[in-house]
């Protein structure tokens, strides 16, 4: 019971301390996206595209979701944060978002087996968020 209480408090603190990306240099981040991240995403997708599930209407909101989907591994695709586009995204955010540092990620699901379709779908969602980001 005490453990759950601590976990709950930890989540509340984490939410309160979630980086909001409002101070990022969006121009530089989008340049990096254009120059490298986009090409890496396309290469991973290899022409396969999925329906877009999530959208965002501001650059801040988009970076928040990009960060979440890129660095929080989902069951079936534990390798996503280690992909080339993810590493370049991390570098761009660290360099052009003052105060940003990679937060502690939930690692309990990383042991799941890799399922190609899940990785492709997740990558497609991240591309859709980048497209929304650059258009917003």
């Amino acid at each position, binding site marked *: 019971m005490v453990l759950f209480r601590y976990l709950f408090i930890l989540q509340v603190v984490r939410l309160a301390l979630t980086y909001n990306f409002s101070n990022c240099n969006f121009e530089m981040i989008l340049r990096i*996206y*254009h120059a490298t991240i*986009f090409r890496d995403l*396309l290469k991973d997708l290899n*022409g*396969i*595209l*999925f*329906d*877009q*599930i999530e*959208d965002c*209407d501001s650059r801040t909101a988009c970076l928040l979701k990009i960060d979440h989907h890129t660095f929080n591994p*989902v*069951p*079936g695709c534990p390798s996503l944060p280690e992909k080339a586009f993810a590493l370049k995204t991390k570098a761009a955010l660290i360099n052009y978002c003052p105060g940003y540092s990679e937060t502690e990620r939930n690692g*309990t*699901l990383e*042991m*799941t*087996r890799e399922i190609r*379709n*899940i990785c492709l*779908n*997740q990558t497609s*969602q991240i*591309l*859709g968020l980048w*497209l*929304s980001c*650059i*258009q917003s």
Partner: protein
Amino acid sequence: MRAVTWAIVAMLLPRVLGAIPTRTPRTGGVGDTLSVAIVCHDLESVEVTWGPGSAHHGLSANLSLEFRYGNQVPQPCPHYFLLDSVRAGCVLPMGKGLLEVVLREGGGAKLFSRKKKASAWLRPRPPWNVTLSWVGDTVAVSCPSHSYPGLEYEVQHRDDFDPEWQSTSAPFCNLTVGGLDPGRCYDFRVRATPQDFYYGPEARPSKWTGVASLQGVGPTGSCTGPTLPRTPGTPTPPLALACGLAVALLTLVLLLALLRMRRVKEALLPGVPDPRGSFPGLFEKHHGNFQAWIADSQAAVPTVPEQDKDDDVIRPQTKGVETQEDDDVIAPGSPCLGGGALMSVGGASFLMGDSGYTTL
């Protein structure tokens, strides 16, 4: 421990898959039964068209389309268009948020669904008011930019020496094509292409503008005007030229046909010679009454010499009637003529009987 891990995966996987559906990607067809194309025209409207895929040879029933932007309530298609009395497409208004399109068969089973930003299917309209001008050995190309960003303008040129199109592109419709010879005649065309990093890999380039020919110096007339079509949708120069040639060719063929018809008519129905020239006064004085004309002509004949009386040959001497040579006059009593007088008038010979005459 391993079993516990797999149990957790088994519990969480369906939830994750539910949050991010893993539908198989579609590039225009669903199981080859339905081919669907979505085009966002100039970020102003969205056109969805469908037709039978390779597995079906025709749509047996009308499909119904519903759409929504973001979290709106799904709406039916506001404007279907038909092909052979069957619904074949729908035009949707532009909206904000993700566009979800669902096609159902008879309002029931879902045949097709897509969900994306409408801009993912962008196809811009072709550039308009494009101007080309020579600056030294370069050509400056300019046109008004579209009202939205993320496009690239592509100019292609070629000439007779190098018929392959060469491309030059820039993010604005204000670019320069270099390394040209002003003495040569070049063809140019322009289009707008959505940048893939901005709209995604499914957006499509606009149509090309019409081809414009341009020459810097040299003999005039080898190239046409330097301005591309001013309004999108007007016929392109090659099309206008082809139409003109077709009309000219058709006119020529019609004229030849008319000429041929006249010749055929002449061959089948030869013209009747006008007796007006051979029988002067026949119509003017006698209103076509040949008997009266002959009588008049006989009256005008001078006294026949004695030696000719036996021949019964009338030789009219009236004005305009020439005397025939004796060789041309068939003598009376000839076996083929039977009885009657032979008369020769104005080049025509007649065998006169009691009640009429026979033309020889």
